[in-house]
């Protein structure tokens, strides 16, 4: 397993060199996204309004953190990925239209997102689900927060991170897709178990 250190903003060349199975540790800035924030972003764009500049070309993290309010700021207490499959459509648009190069989540995304990654040069990285205490330690601070009226988990958090990882590359820009490979093996095994049981 190859370990790769990256710093945001990440270039197309750096992303295109990432291969399925690589483990990434990321420095820089990431932006959290969940269902309601995507709804709002696309509604605003639909109406011809703009979205904050900081969202453009950002690293997206499918994450609704636990955040504690302290005098004058915020502390990220626990931060891990939510299931990405429900953001396939949103990410394929964000990769094409907002210049997103890295998407962090868990569980993988569908074919539309994989196509966008191949065409535009983007990759999908997974955190280990449930290990949110560990990932939160790598969050050095909250740069800003948008749309807090959606509630703490659904708001968009702009986070400064240091060595955020381990992040496993499971979809790369040359069509590699680890989950697809695992699931096709699982399907074969499932049918074999039907015969054994």
């Amino acid at each position, binding site marked *: *397993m190859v370990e790769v250190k990256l710093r945001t903003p990440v270039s197309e060349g750096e992303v295109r060199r990432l291969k399925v*199975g690589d*483990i990434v540790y990321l420095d820089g800035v990431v932006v959290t996204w969940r269902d*309601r924030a995507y709804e709002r972003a696309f509604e605003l764009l639909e109406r011809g309004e703009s979205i904050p500049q900081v969202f453009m070309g950002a690293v997206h993290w499918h*994450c*609704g*953190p*636990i955040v*504690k309010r302290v005098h004058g700021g915020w502390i990220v*207490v*626990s*931060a*891990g990925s*939510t*299931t990405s*499959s429900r953001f396939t459509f949103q990410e394929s648009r964000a990769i094409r239209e907002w210049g997103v190069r890295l998407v962090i989540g*868990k*569980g*993988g995304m569908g074919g539309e997102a994989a196509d966008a990654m191949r065409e535009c040069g983007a990759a999908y990285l*997974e955190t*280990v*689900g*449930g*290990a*949110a*205490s*560990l*990932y*939160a*330690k790598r969050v050095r601070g909250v740069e800003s927060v948008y749309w807090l009226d959606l*509630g*703490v*988990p659904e708001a968009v958090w702009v986070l400064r991170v240091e060595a955020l990882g*381990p992040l*496993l590359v*499971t979809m790369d820009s040359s069509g590699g897709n*680890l*989950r697809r*490979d*695992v*699931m096709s*093996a*699982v*399907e074969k*095994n*499932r049918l*074999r*178990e*039907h015969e*054994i*049981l």
Partner: protein
Amino acid sequence: MVMVEGDLIADVAFKLLSKAAVELPGDVMRLLKEAYTRESTVRGKVMLGTMIDAAEVARKEGRPLCQDTGIPMFFVTIGGKVKVKGDIRDALARGTEKATREVPLRENVVHPLTSRNPGTNVGWGVPYVWYDYKYDADYLEVVAALRGGGSAFATFLTVIPSGVPRLKAVKRAVIDAAARASYACPPLIVGVCIGGYPETAAGEAARALLRVPVGSSNPDPELASLEEELLASVNRLGVGPAGLGGDTTALALHVEVRGSHTALPSLAVAFSCWALRRASARIYADGSVEWLHPPGGE
């Protein structure tokens, strides 16, 4: 007979949620470490090692292990030899509000149609509370459980199809449900309820996840051997830690059987991610508190 006060129940509920959110129970940690030793794939070992590290960080630093602290649920057993002063539900709700503020837990509970979020994890019937009664007990037992949305989403419920021998149909359905649960953060704990009505089977399957210690066998030897057979089969699926391939797909599998309507044999399968978060305590009639799983005070 001595009274158990509502304020004490609220305080116990707060401490149980605080404990459950940050401390992976010892029996779960033991299974995770055994799986780490056994796992033969490099990637699977990295995933399991990261989980073990995260559990240690969570406990040492008091951070919730997973950011998804679920919807708070309580299982309460009321002993016949204690008298409770005050409303148990209200006390558990107060404990939940305090834990949401102070641990903190994620503010997950919203109105299902408007998404309005009161920010307290209380409202519209939440926290969920299940009551049981044990007439000869001199305590009130409270179990708090936190299970994330990814695990709950994988819940499977069916009426066992006819046309195939029933036991075979059950085995296949359990394996199929486990094969689909790769996003529920494996290695999984699997709870199976065979029988009951559909709506009770789903609840019993989720409750089977809370068996203590995790991985212990059903006292019925036939069900114990079914558990063993199904666990081995799930672990041959190759889903692996984090669903990214490997030998360890499930840490434990618990089967419960409930009486079934003759025309309606239900089957429910519930899942927990590896981060099985639960804590329990007994409040005795004299007001003393025994912390059970995990043990120890605050």
